[in-house]
């Protein structure tokens, strides 16, 4: 006998008139900042159990609902920080759910949970996407490859994302002997600035080329000054490089390293770029399903990174990223999702699973 799903965020609002909308509201109501996903994970697992699906939570906190591996539906449970009051407001196209995660990516997550229950497709809610992607990394290390993957992130209910740039982050560290600042010799901070200027020149932006096809550079942290013992000058710079599919992580890292004259860079675990084909059966099923909901399908490639990069690095099956919501609202203080878009995304996902042969 199935367990009973207990809504935790019920406010008797008339717009919460489907199981899916209620699940979405509940999951958005539970804070689930990266590293603190356990309560939301338990609620998600309860939804599957109430619908007769076996579930388990793995060693890193991912929620699994094993099913028909013709399609694996997977999205992330965690959100970035941000306290946005959870409420339903009347928008231009009907009721909207406001709250952290409504777009990135609890909307995609809940729509996939509903579609998985309706069709029997496999499902995994992963943790830690907004930080280290530890959930997705664990999945590809421990799970067999499915026949197709639909990764959840906001593409808009009428769009699918086919590609993401890769990402590599590093920390530059240099030291120099301390000395009077009237001396002409460059100190560690000057070495750091000079290195970074050379890296930026190496990957000089081309205004005529799409950003997706370029390496872009971004310093994200800078620390330095005289060391605590007063004997040396230090400089520490945290940097990020975004890598297009036509370049490799190794190539980009080597070009940045080649600009070093003083100091070293400690590179962190990279995320490779991904670009999938719009002619796969999976992408085709999405176009048909979106048109079936009277949408005009959009094909997207994104300049950021998602867990699809990690899935594509290990698995060769067709994959796309999909989910309701305007990605301009990712991490934003006015994050909100029209509930009509959520409903359409559920319908699109169900149609796609059925066209791919889930349950047959």
């Amino acid at each position, binding site marked *: 006998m199935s367990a009973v799903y207990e809504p935790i965020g019920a406010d008797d609002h008339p717009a919460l008139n489907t199981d899916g909308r209620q699940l979405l509201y509940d999951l958005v109501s539970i804070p689930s900042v990266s590293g603190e996903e356990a309560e939301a994970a338990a609620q998600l697992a309860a939804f599957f159990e109430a619908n007769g699906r076996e579930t388990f939570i793995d060693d890193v906190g991912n929620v699994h609902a094993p099913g028909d591996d013709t399609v694996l539906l997977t999205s992330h449970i965690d959100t970035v920080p941000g306290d946005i009051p959870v409420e339903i407001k009347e928008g231009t196209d009907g009721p909207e759910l406001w709250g952290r995660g409504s777009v990135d990516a609890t909307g995609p997550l809940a729509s996939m949970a509903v579609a998985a229950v309706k069709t029997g497709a496999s499902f995994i809610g992963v943790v830690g996407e907004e930080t280290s992607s530890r959930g997705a990394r664990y999945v590809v290390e421990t799970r067999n490859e499915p026949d197709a993957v639909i990764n959840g992130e906001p593409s808009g209910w009428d769009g699918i994302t086919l590609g993401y740039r890769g990402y590599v982050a590093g920390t530059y560290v240099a030291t120099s002997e301390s000395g009077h600042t009237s001396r002409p010799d460059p100190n560690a901070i000057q070495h750091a600035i000079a290195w970074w200027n050379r890296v930026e020149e190496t990957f000089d932006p081309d205004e005529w080329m799409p950003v997706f096809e370029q390496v872009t550079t971004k310093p994200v942290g800078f620390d330095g000054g005289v060391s605590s013992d007063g004997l040396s000058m230090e400089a520490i710079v945290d940097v990020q490089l975004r890598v297009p599919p036509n370049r490799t992580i190794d190539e980009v890292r080597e070009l940045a390293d080649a600009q070093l004259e003083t100091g070293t860079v400690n590179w962190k675990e990279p995320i490779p770029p991904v670009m999938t084909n719009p002619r796969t059966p999976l992408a085709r099923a999405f176009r048909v399903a979106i048109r079936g909901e009277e949408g005009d399908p959009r094909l997207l490639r994104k300049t*950021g990174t998602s867990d699809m990069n990690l899935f594509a690095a290990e698995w060769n099956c067709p994959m796309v990223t999909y989910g309701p919501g305007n990605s301009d609202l990712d991490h934003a203080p006015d994050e909100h999702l029209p509930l009509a878009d959520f409903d359409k995304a559920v319908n699109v996902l169900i149609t796609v699973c059925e066209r791919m042969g889930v349950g047959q």
Partner: protein
Amino acid sequence: MTEAECVECGAELSLHDDLEAGEIIDCGTCGAELEVIDTEPPVLDRAPELEEDWGE
């Protein structure tokens, strides 16, 4: 084998029998990418172009 007209250049296209909705085909004359909107009868339209977007 059925035929349809390229919406881009007007050339006649010979379509294979197991055409599927959502399929993308190329016009052999102008090179345009065309999407099969319907199969009976065949309806073609320009395939969506790849757009660039920010973020995740």
